[in-house]
């Protein structure tokens, strides 16, 4: 079995008496992985540990390399788009990206070619020759993305890439990010506190809270971390209250929205088939049955509010 892109075993990092990461265990693979968490949850510290920039206890492996001992090799194979501005005064975008490529070990000619390609990909085209100092926030974000891409990384760490962007620029940035895995053949770790961004582009999520990994799995698993869909919306031809009463005998909690619709929260041992059986017994015709999906915000709040680490049972990659 191939080694996961990122593997963490009892990863612990303390700043004096402040514990930023507390024994984090995870094995992460995916296409676009959302790293979620409130401020101070340990996201940035985790990224720094993965880049081999901070000493830590435990084990952190990226692309099969130990971050503690192979930090430089990892950083040559990983791209990092920082949250804050990280430019060099007086440089144009193409100069900055060429320089970035060279600092990652590319020969000068190759770095220059890839700088043009990365900036073109990021949509800067003719603006790439202008000094970065005069760029708008959106353009600066694009330059940051391009400089992270220029050396052809296998993993891209994006730290709050849509911060400070107007809605249109944000859409454009998210579109670029969503296209990256196919077009650039890389995996993305998207660190953000903006849940809609994660919902839109990520296929997997890691949620950090108080230095612990509280969830790691797919987005679908995040919304149904109780293991199955227990909340249903049932449309009936008539007599929703009769079905509610029948399901109530099983211990289900039902809310009749109208004579034609009810919301049902099933007990632990019941499934959607139970609803159909009870409807048949009660002589009620079911016209439709839908799963009430939890919003990403609700799922996030539930995960960080839950004192116990949450691991979806269906995810073999998660050991949190």
């Amino acid at each position: 079995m191939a080694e996961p892109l990122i593997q963490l075993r009892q990863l612990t990092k303390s700043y004096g008496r402040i514990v930023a990461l507390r024994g984090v265990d995870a094995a992460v693979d995916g296409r676009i992985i959302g790293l979620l968490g409130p401020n101070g949850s340990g996201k940035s510290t985790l990224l720094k540990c993965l880049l081999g920039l901070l000493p830590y206890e435990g084990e952190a492996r990226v692309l099969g390399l130990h971050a503690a001992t192979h930090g430089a090799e990892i950083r040559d194979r990983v791209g990092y788009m920082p949250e804050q501005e990280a430019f060099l005064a007086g440089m144009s975008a193409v100069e900055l990206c060429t320089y970035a490529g060279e600092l990652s070990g590319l020969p000068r000619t190759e770095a220059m070619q890839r700088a043009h390609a990365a900036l073109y990909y990021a949509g800067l085209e003719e603006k790439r020759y202008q000094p970065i100092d005069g760029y708008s926030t959106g353009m600066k974000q694009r330059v940051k993305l391009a400089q992270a891409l220029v050396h052809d990384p296998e993993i891209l760490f994006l730290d709050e890439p849509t911060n400070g962007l107007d809605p249109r620029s944000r859409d454009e940035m998210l579109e670029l990010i969503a296209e990256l895995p196919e077009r650039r053949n890389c995996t993305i770790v998207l660190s953000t506190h903006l849940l809609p961004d994660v919902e839109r582009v990520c296929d997997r999520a890691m949620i950090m809270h108080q230095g612990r990994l509280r969830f790691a799995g797919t987005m679908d698993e995040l919304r149904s971390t109780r293991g199955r869909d227990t909340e249903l919306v049932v449309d009936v031809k008539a007599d929703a209250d009769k079905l509610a009463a029948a399901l109530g005998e099983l211990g289900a909690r039902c809310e009749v929205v109208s004579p034609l619709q009810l919301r049902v929260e099933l007990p632990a041992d019941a499934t959607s088939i139970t609803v159909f059986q009870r409807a048949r017994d009660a002589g009620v015709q079911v016209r439709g049955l839908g799963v009430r999906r939890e919003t990403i915000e609700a799922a996030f709040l539930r995960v960080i509010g839950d004192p116990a680490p949450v691991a979806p049972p269906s995810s073999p990659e998660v050991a949190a």
Partner: protein
Amino acid sequence: MSGAKGQIHDLGYKRYVGTRRPPSTRWRVIARHQISFAWKTWWRFKAALGIAIIATCITSGLMLFASERSTSVGLAQAIVKPLIDSALPESIIWFCRAGFLVSLTIGAGVVASDVQSGAFTFYFARSVKPFHYVAGKLVGLCALLAIIVFAGPMVISGLRVGIADSPEQLIEMLPYLGKTAIIGAVATLAYAAVPLGFSALLHNRRHALALWAAYYLIFGEMMHALGRASDSSGWIAAIDIPHAVQALAYDLYDIKFRAQRDANIPVEAAVVALAAHVVLAIAIVLHRVRAAQRAGIGGGA
């Protein structure tokens, strides 16, 4: 920005399969960038280069003129030779002034400017180590300063050797080149490392420039004036970098004559003061950069 809908532009992506240069070569990239960046604006480097060229031309012209006169008019060697010999040591102070201009416009802002613009994150998110960063910046600055405070005196000393009256005198003058190389190298290192150290002391580029200028122009001159006022305080005067360099030049060229405006700085004091400046400055920069990297990318600024 591109159109309303975020357009994806791709010139055709290919995975890079070539070899990557080892991390130990990063300092060369940083040094080359330092040089090319300095060349971009005329006032950063080209103005100082102009001063150095003028100083080289004037000193060379004076030496040639004196050399011609000594043969055509038949002036006594005893009068002309010391004049020719003292031309280079006397010109050192001008090269130091040009060096200071470069150190002020480029050197003293290097680290502070990087801290200010968040460039530490840019560097250390890659396979760049603090040592590579410091070595690259120092070598880049040294290369720039060598064009001014090393190349100029070397041209003059080459000319001095070239205008020797006889093959015997030429052979006798050859060590002149080595001595000039030593003085040029010491001055280059001092004018590159010390402002770099000052640039690491503060987070703001302009403040770092002001601090270096104040140290060099005010504090240095004060120390020199103090040393001149007291004959026994040559060690204090050695804190003034240009006069320390000049004292070293006087000693190496075996020039006994000192202008009244100069303090009598012992060569030991000049060497110790210059070495202390350089070592302390490099230690400050290394400490500053390592501390920032230890705090995480760009942290600790």
